[in-house]
């Protein structure tokens, strides 16, 4: 145990590094918040301040006046929740099979998952557009959900395979010895231990769908169907000129759902991980 103990200077160094990393991560978000509350004149100041000198809510008012932010947020929410749920429902049984059955097919599937991550958006967007048009799913949120599910599935699968492998097979064997059937074992033994993994995977699918821009831009045609990332670009003009205050205000609001979802779920992820560790 003494070998694992870290010396005080090393511990202090670790905390400093952690703090620096946190500052690095938090800086853009804090700057966004600061910008959202600044009036136009402060935004053009040569010596910008962290705390707005003359804080205002005018940027938020303008953002809501000019763009249908609430409708767009609702569309984003439906698309992100839909994509997260469906991706997890599809990925879970696949991941179980890929983790527990070391067959050639499982290995090939794993390889395909890795390869599929290499395809850039622009390569698939036109064929995808034509396929969705045939299915009459252009300009519809369900069509967008379908795309997000397909896009999130490989990585979701990859994540879940790791979580399933972390659940000791001995627990399933013990359950079988106690007389539990396959379904009972999966529901009562594997599923609770997999919960943190499912939550983390759903969170990944949710956030990637919530932030996604290009597919939404191309697939949704009418204003009432557009998602938040697409609507945010309406604050940007030619040559990158932006209406910075309202853009920052809207972007700040757009980050809140991800933060809230993560804050709620984070505790569950860590507690679930610990529970799994004790049982194994």
């Amino acid at each position: 145990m003494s070998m694992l103990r870290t010396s005080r200077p090393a511990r202090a160094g670790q905390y400093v590094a952690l703090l620096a990393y946190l500052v690095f991560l938090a800086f853009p978000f804090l700057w966004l918040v600061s910008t959202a509350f600044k009036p136009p004149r402060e935004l053009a100041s040569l010596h910008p301040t962290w705390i707005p000198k003359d804080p205002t809510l005018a940027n938020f008012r303008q953002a809501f006046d000019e763009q249908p932010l609430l409708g767009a947020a609702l569309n984003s929410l439906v698309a992100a929740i839909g994509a997260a749920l469906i991706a997890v429902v599809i990925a879970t049984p696949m991941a179980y099979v890929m983790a527990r059955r070391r067959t050639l097919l499982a290995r090939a599937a794993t390889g395909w998952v890795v390869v599929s991550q290499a395809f850039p958006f622009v390569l698939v967007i036109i064929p995808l557009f034509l396929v969705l048009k045939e299915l009459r799913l252009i300009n519809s949120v369900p069509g967008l959900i379908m795309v997000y599910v397909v896009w999130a599935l490989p990585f979701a699968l990859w994540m879940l395979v790791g979580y399933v492998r972390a659940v000791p097979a001995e627990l399933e064997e013990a359950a079988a010895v106690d007389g539990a059937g396959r379904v009972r074992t999966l529901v009562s033994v594997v599923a609770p231990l997999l919960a943190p993994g499912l939550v983390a995977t759903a969170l990944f699918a949710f956030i990637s769908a919530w932030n996604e821009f290009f597919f939404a831009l191309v697939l949704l045609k009418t204003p009432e169907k557009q998602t938040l990332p697409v609507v945010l670009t309406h604050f940007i003009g030619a040559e990158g000129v932006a209406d910075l205050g309202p853009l920052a205000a809207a972007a700040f609001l757009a980050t809140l759902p991800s933060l809230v979802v993560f804050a709620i779920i984070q505790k569950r992820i860590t507690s679930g991980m610990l529970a799994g560790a004790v049982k194994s």
Partner: protein
Amino acid sequence: MHTRFRPALMRTRILLALAAVFGLLLTGCTGDNGGSGSGSGSGSDGRITLRFQSLAWQKESVEANKELVEEWNAAHPDVQVEYVQGSWDSVHDQLLTSFEGGEAPDIIHDASDDLADFAYGGYLADLRELLPQRLREEIPDRSWETATFGDGIYGVPFLQEPRVLIANATWLKESGVRIPTPEKPWSWEEFRQITKELRGDGRYGVAWPLKEPVSATLNLSLSAGGRIFHRGEDGRVEVRFDTADEVVPRTVHDQVATDRSASGTTLGMGGSDTLPGFFAGKYAMVPLGFSYRQQIVQQAPKGFDWQVLPAPAGADGLTQGVSPQTLSIAEDSPHKKEAARFIDFLLRPENMVRLALGDWMLPTGKKALSDPALHTEKYDWATGTALAEHLRSAPAQSVRGYPEWKDKVATPAFQEYYSGAITLDELRERLVEDGNLVLARYQR
């Protein structure tokens, strides 16, 4: 047992309720799937709906566009227009995908320098037979040239902006330098001398925001007679970098590297990025698009006195290249005539003025340009309007292969030259030799 089941039952009910709400939301998000094969549609009552994708983004501009669409819809119950807001940031990719998928909007707002691929690709309708004579005559030929590709016209150029010098009026007044006017502008050499006079301790006569150095340099070079792209009788384009092409790049280079009268740090900035330094009195002048006045009005500190000056003139006077905003019609649209009628309505002189004021730009239309609202001293509208007759088609926009030449050859070459890393001869060598190799691939 009963009590143990209650929480589970409760949870199930909550989950079911959430699922029902989600289902309802999903239903609400479904609807028109737009499978008609184009942006527009015809209802069972014979009513036509056209989709108009506008890139207007500033508040006044969006309002002007929406009001005009409402006025049209009220007057034309059989041809309704649906207003869709697009984004300058992503319009090319979005349109390309929509064209390929047969789902493009009927009426497309874009800029003339983005049209070449779409026009040559057959995605846009040739407007020559569609537009009324009134509109053809209202817009001068020099503007039509910006949207002419091959033999066809693929967009109606309607808003444009010259590059001007936005100046700190107090600083200029105190320095005693001659204030230029459209009638008596500075020459490029005079401009260089004046920026030398204006420089001071940590203060610069000018700040060139040259994040995109190629279009700024090429467009301003027209004033000195620079062309860079020379089209032969066989239609092939060749890059040359003659004496006239050197005037603008050399002035900028000398201001930055020799005179230290221009800030070197702003060379990598966009126009908006230079404004804080301009307001803080670090730069006497900033060359910007005419529409930047809107940002300056919004952001300038109280009491900050600014004015618009014409860009310097050369052998060809105040001539400048521009890429106007355009309205086009999708080739796949089944209602091209109706779309053309809407464009004609939108660009009536009085409406063009409303759009121009909303975007802080100049209209291309002759009658629109004569509107008193565009000749006021307030915000120096009159100075900009006086420059309209000098605006010409940007030299590069009909050159196939220009985007690659710009990104791979010209942008790094100009950036290195302006920062003093390479000489004028090296700049010429790269623009011409490397550039012609790039263009040759597009002209086989």
